[in-house]
């Protein structure tokens, strides 16, 4: 991939974001279990709901991100998406318990209720985060020949971020600080990512 000096900063910024966004994405899936188990049990159905909701969110994010990046060739839109996800996560600790209790009391604890609870927790923020990878590929690709290389790099770095997010959340964060604090930490990390993308270097020169 040919990178000009002017675009080097943008490239590094986008790879950094791919890693952090990937990390928060999977970290929040692991954390989802801590929010759901007290209400819907630690059964295999809860995990299936979490995993399928995350994958649904990613599918939505990929479709939307891919459609949007060809029309608006700017990092500001994806920065806004990450900022919205950050705001959503920041609201989760205070609202999760009443929402879970409401779902449990009105629909029960069957598959529909668990899926709804997982969706309420994860679908919006992770769909927003899911738009990042296709947008990143669009922003970094300048010619058809390099598209494969760019896509491979973005998805590879994002997936390494997924792995890091899963492991750090499970083995370091959950044993050290509470789930609510971890959620605020993620929100802060995303807000930083969004802020960096709003900087002038986030604008791709024509």
């Amino acid at each position, binding site marked *: 991939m040919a990178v000009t000096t002017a675009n080097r900063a943008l490239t590094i910024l986008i790879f950094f974001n791919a890693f952090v966004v990937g990390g928060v994405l999977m970290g929040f899936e692991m954390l989802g279990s*801590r929010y759901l*188990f*007290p*209400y*819907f*049990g*630690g*059964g*295999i159905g809860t995990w299936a709901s979490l995993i399928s909701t995350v994958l649904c969110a990613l599918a939505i994010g990929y479709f939307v991100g891919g459609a949007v990046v060809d029309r608006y060739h700017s990092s500001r839109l994806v920065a806004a998406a990450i900022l919205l996800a950050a705001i959503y996560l920041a609201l989760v600790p205070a609202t999760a318990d009443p929402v879970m209790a409401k779902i*449990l009391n009105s629909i*029960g*604890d069957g598959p529909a209720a668990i899926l709804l609870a997982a969706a309420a927790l994860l679908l919006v923020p992770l769909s927003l985060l899911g738009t990042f990878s296709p947008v990143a590929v669009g922003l970094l690709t300048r010619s058809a020949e390099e598209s494969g290389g760019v896509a491979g790099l973005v998805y590879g770095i994002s997936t390494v971020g997924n792995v890091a997010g899963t492991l750090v959340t499970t*083995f370091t964060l*959950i*044993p*050290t*600080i*509470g*789930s*609510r*604090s971890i959620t605020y930490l993620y929100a802060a990390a995303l807000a930083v990512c969004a802020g960096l993308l709003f900087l002038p270097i986030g604008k791709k020169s024509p």
Partner: protein
Amino acid sequence: MIVRSLIAGAVIAGTVAAAALFAGSADAQDTRKLLESRESLYNNIYVYGQGPYVSLTFGYNRNIYTESIFNTLDDRDLPVEYTRCMTASLIYAKNVNSILEIGFGGGRTSFYLHRFLPQIPVTSVELDPTVVELSHKYFGIMDEPNFQVVNRDGRIFLNESKDRYDIILIDAYRGPFVPFHLLTKEFYTIVKNHLADGGVVAQNVEPSTMLFDSAVKTIHAVFPQLDFYVAAGNVVTIAYDGPPRTADDLDRTARQRDSAYNLRYSLHDMLAQRRQIQIDGGTVIDPHAKVLTDDFAPVEALKAIEAHNRKWQ
């Protein structure tokens, strides 16, 4: 969910004679016969037979964790010592009109209570449907009036139930692990809200790791009174609300209920295993141990920290 009795291998050897027959890693030399192995939704289950004993075990990492042991020749035998101590809850309950168990496993503890107190409704909650099935097939569990097994997550069952119980027994393990949502302050608060006036909670806790310290502090955060029954390899905690019971009072109630129910394992004898410890600022419980909450409950991490030389005075 699961009754946990023994850690594999040497830890338990020589403690409970019958139990020791079954202890040991999966590849250890022994004479037990594998009756059935099943991969359920939650566990790798192995049912072994040896002489008259049948054991329900779960495999985790090459280790076998015995969850329940049944003496096929004696319906009223409790070969695993801590399961007898779970019945010490009978000494503490103000009335004995209903019993709930969370974590059924082979079901021997609740069925023992059902056998001796047939007029009292006993309800058990078990997450793994295959465990319920095998308990009927190998562990002498029968569908009888006043004895009910519900296939459910323990916390969901309580969330949805409006019933109150005089005794709640908690013994929910998955191999070596306790599901975190069954060991938090919020969970015990729900449990407390399902206790009848003068009700008690008995909990089986495995004392070799730091999880024990946090579990004790967590239970104590909800229940002011906490007694301990030390049984080979395990500790049973008895928690209740209100003022502490005096030794005389317990002695008298134990004798009364021994004669009323004609129990195999004398409650009065069990009082010899009773310990009272200082939980805050004492020597048994680590002063740095934290109360577990739905927000912060690193049960796996605490389980990995061994607590050495815990001294029961």
